[in-house]
Each structure stands twice: as C-alpha cells, then as structure tokens.
C-alpha cells in the first residue's frame, strides 16, 4: 500500500463521484488502496446516515423550542399557567430582547437541520448518534452545509444569550466552559484550514465542533426555557 499520485487523483475525483458522475478510475483505485477504500466507505456511511436522518421524528423539546421562539416574536401568545411561571419569566426575558423575524425563520430552519444531530438530552434510539459518526469517520461536509450550520449556530447563540440568565448558575458555568472550549477548537481549526498539510483533518474537526456547539446550545435553550 504505497502512496502515489493515484491517491491524490482519488481525492481530486471524489467530489465529482459523490455528485453521481461515473469515475471508474476512482473505484479501481479504491479497490487497491486500503486507506482510500476506507475513506470512500466512510463517506458512503455518512451519506446513508444522512438519508436516514430525514425520517426521524422531531422531539417534543424541538416543538417547545419553536413555540418559545414564536412566543418571543409575539407571533403567538402564552396563557399564563401556575406551574410554568418560571418558563414564562424566561419568555418575558426574550420579549425584552426580541429576535428579528428573519432570525426566527432561520432558527426554525436551523432546528430542522439539527433534527439529524441529537441534542445532549434528546434521544434518537434508532441509530448511533450522527454527531459521533461524523466525529469518528472521515468528515465530508460541503462548504454550503457549513455555511448553513454557522448561520444556525448564530441564531441559537443569540437565543442562548437572551435566556442564559435563567439557567441555574452551575449549569450556566458548565455551558460557558464548554462553549469556550468549542469556540477555541473552531477558531484553531479555521486557522488550520489555511495550512495545506492539515486541511483535511482540520475540516473534519471543524465540522464536528460546529455540530457539537449546535447541540450544546440546543440543550442550553431547553433548560433555559424549561427550568
């Protein structure tokens, strides 16, 4: 299994092959090269998981988050209930800092994207966590996907900042520390993307960090609104 130009050709043809174009040379090389065969198998696995994700049922927490965002926008009104007064206090806080309507649409879109990436407290029993799968296999996330994910994260982060004061202090400290860690990881990975030698692994870590950050914010919002 010696490295040669055929491995580089494999990488160059990979995107076209994944778009559905016939690339017999790529397949022939994958049959001969262990590493490239693993890469290809992993990408196929991620794609298969991605297609399965669309079939997953949204969690109850998701609808609560969407509802909370709609309430925050004043699009729907909440009837006060005795058991949920703290939750309403959180929503009132959000009303004082209303998100733009366009932001809401983006947030809803974002949450839909996140359906495939289970939050820390949202169970998806059927398959291994896609986030873990992504973390554990060769990462393939198109630039467009990353751009959409970063928009999602910005919306979630804005909602988090609106509601963070309602988090229990020790939980808030945990979230803050973890966010700091992930932000540092994201920043370093972005810097490493300019480094040709480390681009592939940096890209893999970057995508995973984005997904983890989105999950973390989703989890924090669940608690910020429902504690």
């Amino acid at each position, binding site marked *: 299994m010696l*490295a040669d130009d055929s491995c580089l050709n494999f990488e160059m043809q990979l995107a076209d092959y994944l778009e559905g174009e016939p690339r017999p040379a790529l397949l022939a090389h994958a049959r001969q090269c262990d590493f490239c065969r693993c890469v290809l198998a992993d990408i196929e696995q991620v794609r298969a998981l991605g297609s399965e994700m669309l079939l997953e049922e949204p969690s109850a927490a998701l609808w609560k988050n969407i509802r909370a965002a709609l309430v925050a926008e004043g699009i729907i009104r909440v009837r006060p209930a005795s058991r949920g007064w*703290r939750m309403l206090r959180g929503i009132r806080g959000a009303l004082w800092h209303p998100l733009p309507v366009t932001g809401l649409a983006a947030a809803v879109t974002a949450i839909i994207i996140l359906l495939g990436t289970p939050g820390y407290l949202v169970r998806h029993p059927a398959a291994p966590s896609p986030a*873990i799968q992504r973390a554990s296999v060769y990462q393939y996330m198109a630039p467009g996907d990353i751009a959409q994910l970063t928009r999602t994260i910005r919306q979630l982060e804005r909602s988090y900042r609106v509601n963070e004061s309602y988090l229990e202090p020790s939980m808030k400290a945990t*979230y803050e*520390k973890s966010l700091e860690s992930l932000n540092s990881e994201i920043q370093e990975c972005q810097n490493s993307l300019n480094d040709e030698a480390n681009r592939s692994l940096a890209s893999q870590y970057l995508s995973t960090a984005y997904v983890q950050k989105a999950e973390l914010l989703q989890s924090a919002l669940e608690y910020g609104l429902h504690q």
Partner: protein
Amino acid sequence: MRRIAIVPLLFVVPAAAWASGSLRRTDTFVTIANPDINLNNLVGVVVVRGWTEARVRAAYTMASPHIEIDATPIPDSGQVQRIELATHLLDPALQGARARVDYTIDAPFGSSLEIRNPQGVVRIEKLNGDAWVASVGGNIFVSDSSGRVVARSIGGQIQIIRASGYVEVSSVTGDLRFVSPTTSRIRARTSSGNIVYQGNLVPAADYVMETYSGDIDFMCPPASSFELKARSVEGKVFHELKLNRKNHHHSVFYYGNALYGTHNDGAATLELTSFRGNIYLRPQPQQP
C-alpha cells in the same frame, strides 16, 4: 388561642417529617423481565442496579418537601412494562442543592434505561438492557453492562467499566475512561477532555476515539491484537508497543504525526485521533 396553637404546628409537622426522614419514599413495581425505565431528574445522584427479581424498587430521597416524584407505571395494572419517573418541583424557585433528589433503583437485569440527570451523577451497574444517559455537568459511570450504552455529558466525565455491548460516549470538556471492555464497538469523542483506555481488544473489535486538545492514553496487554491508525496534527504519537509498521502512506506526510501499524495479528481495528494532544500507546501495567 386555638388558632395560636395550630400555627406552630404547621411548622413543626414538616420539620418533624424532615427530621424523621419521611422525605424518603420507596415505590415497588412488579414488572416484566425487561422493562423500560425512563427517568428525568434535575439535581442529585441516580443509581440503577440490576438484580434477578422481576420487579423494580425505586427509592427517592428529596431535599425539600416542595419536591414531588411522579412515578407512572405502564400499564397501571398487572405486570409493568414501562416506568416513568420524574422530579417535579412544586416550588419553581428551588435550585441547586435545594432541588436535589437522589434515586436508587433496583431493576431486573434486562431493563432498558433512559435517564436525564443534568446536574448529577448517574451510576449504572450490572444491566443487560440498553442504557441511554445524558447529563450536562454530571459524571456518568457504567459498569458490567452488556447492552448498548449511549452516554453524553457536556462537562462531566464518563467512565465505562467492563462493558460488552456497543458503547457510544461523548463529552465536550469531560474525560472519557474505558476499563476492561469486551465490546466489539466503541465510539468516543471529547473536545478538551482526555481519553484513557485500559484493557484488551476482542477480535474484530472496532474502536474509534477522538479528542481535540486532550491526550489519549491507550494501555493494552502485550498479547492484544489490532490494526492501528493513530494520528495527531500538533501533538505527537508515542508508543511502547511492538508494532509492525506499515509502509508509509501519503497521509503520514499529510498529518503532522501519524502511526499506522499492526500489533500481533491485527485482529481488531483501533483508530485514535487528536488534533493538539499527544497519543500514548503502552503496555497495560500488571495488576498487583
């Protein structure tokens, strides 16, 4: 006068109840051999232990009389197939230690668990069913489990001991630790925590472990057999094992430090990745 006498009683009775330990409650449910148990707590320790009996005994210790435990067996008559347990704060202002509830649950070996305990430790022992556990800041310990284990903690550490079923764990800042697993599949990811592995690898096992800035310390017996793919961008790969190195693949040059090799017959597959941390591969210390 009578009114004056009653008012102090309102305070004395709850205080006496507190002192006498009546903030403990125990429920027992006759169940099938493999019931589902769903538990939602906020703060406190959750312990679930497997036993041979076909019933679930759940004991709760509450820190405040303003906490209620909702225990719902399904179906509500006959052998219970599913139990839903939830901590319910009657006073929403309760936070931290004042909202604490400790759960101790004895359940049939075949029970499957779904546990959310954002601010507390979860400990699971000797279960054959699946376990799904999530926490925000709490540590998670699972031992002698043969079902599938999925554990997530944002800031807590996760420790898996002698697991023989599928294991999937992740944390952001917490450490991950595996001791003597016999499972065929492990997936582990932490951002800034360390990963420690101590034990053998079963034939055909497939282990993937990844950290961003933490170290990976992998210790195995000299007789263990696996194909290794270890790589770190800014860290280094140190090994004290007798590896048969493969020919250098181009990726060795792409990544800062990488090591591909075979240990003994290469019966299992091991992939270790760190971006900034070091990776250590060494023989497992002999047990005293």
